[in-house]
């Protein structure tokens, strides 16, 4: 993780986002990973797609259920974590680092500022 990596922010759909040079890295929160249980498959988004915040862009399948992953902000998908293709359980082991899912080139950094901080997300989970 780079030295200029921003603070991690969270969405109400339990994704995390961090930003470095207008590139956002996105995954699901450790809390999401715990509630999904064993993750067996992830359908990764397509690189090159332009998406809007709240668009369903990929699916995580656990032994319990399929869960949609939403784009947290507007932008273009530029990279996906191909390691997850062979071993989606990486998300269970390290959801908020090695288990990152995709990277986006973002168009509006204000959308990022509006997401929850780690503390705000923690409070959100306790509600």
């Amino acid at each position: 993780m780079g030295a200029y990596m921003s603070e991690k922010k969270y969405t109400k759909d339990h994704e995390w986002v961090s930003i470095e040079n207008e590139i956002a890295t996105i995954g699901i929160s450790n809390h999401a990973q715990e509630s999904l249980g064993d993750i067996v498959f992830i359908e990764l988004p397509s690189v090159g797609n332009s998406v809007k915040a709240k668009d369903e862009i990929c699916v995580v399948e656990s032994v319990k259920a399929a869960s949609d992953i939403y784009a947290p902000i507007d932008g273009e998908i530029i990279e996906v974590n191909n390691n997850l293709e062979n071993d989606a359980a990486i998300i269970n082991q390290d959801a908020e680092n090695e288990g990152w899912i995709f990277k986006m080139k973002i168009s509006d950094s204000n959308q990022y500022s509006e997401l929850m901080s780690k503390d705000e997300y923690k409070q959100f989970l306790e509600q």
Partner: protein
Amino acid sequence: MPFAGFNMPINYKTGIINEHKNVRNHSGIFDVSHMGQILIENNESYLHKLEKYIPLQLKKLTKNRSHYSFLLNKDGGVIDDLIISNIDIKDKSYLYIVYNASRKKEDEEIFISCSPNAEKIYEKNCLFAIQGPDSINVLKNIIDIPNNMNFFDILISKYDNNEIIVSRSGYTGEDGFELSIPNESAENLINLLLKNENTMLCGLGSRDSLRLEAGLSLYGHELNEKITPIEAGLSWALDKERLEDKNLNGNKVLSDQLKNKLSNKKIGLISTSKSMLRDGMTLFDNNNNEIGKITSGCFSPNLNKSIAIGYIISEFNTDNPIFCEIRKKLELVKINNLPFVKKNYKKNGSIYE
């Protein structure tokens, strides 16, 4: 997770896949106290009334044996599936029946109407299962298990000066035991069993994936009031002589079905991609015609793929490709004979084989 009015764990600490593998390789303990357990006196008039619903010759049930059976409605549809055993407790002969938590209301209405003094022993007895190849070794340290006890044998044993019901059975496809034990002694016994380092508590999640790999039906999925045991591929569990008996609900429907072609057939399916097959998904032929539905689906830890059970129309030729609609896309699935994983019962003439 709420399940049939109970708050039940889907899994414990280590997760569904780990629990599942532990049962296949060692042993696991399932608390199934939410299930119904009832004792009905072995009395001719009660049995006669029960035979209206249960397709077995209840008067001829072998002592100390269990049988997989059903309660049938007047169309031959399945009100519930259950395990019925003939046992003596304190020198009195009983039918001991274990039935689904989700069907307690319907089942008990029938049991009480046939036998007003039927005793709902789940009110004072826990029911738990120890399943897996190590079960016998873990259990026999604590409870006397005769060497010649086979799958679907049942007996009364003692623990903590209380009588407990021990059956060699379960719903995972593995060897194992179910124990009906007074509430006050249950925790103590479970803790003793858990002292074995290779046994662990398991939740509803692994119970479901284990039974699915073993190709076993689950009420509310493969079975319901609109499906007969024959349509569900379970005609082996019917006593064929009873199908000629007018006293049995749906006897005409069932005996006709045995002679004629059914409109649907039960099949096992394996995913060809990494996508998960799940209950309710629709199946298509290669011309986009709907041919059936999935009734249960899960990830199979043993096959490392998603597996499912479903029903398709009988006229469909299974040499042709089948597609499953997964998130609006059609994905190829392969037919697989049931069970997906070989059953591992200690057997010697069980009705279950």
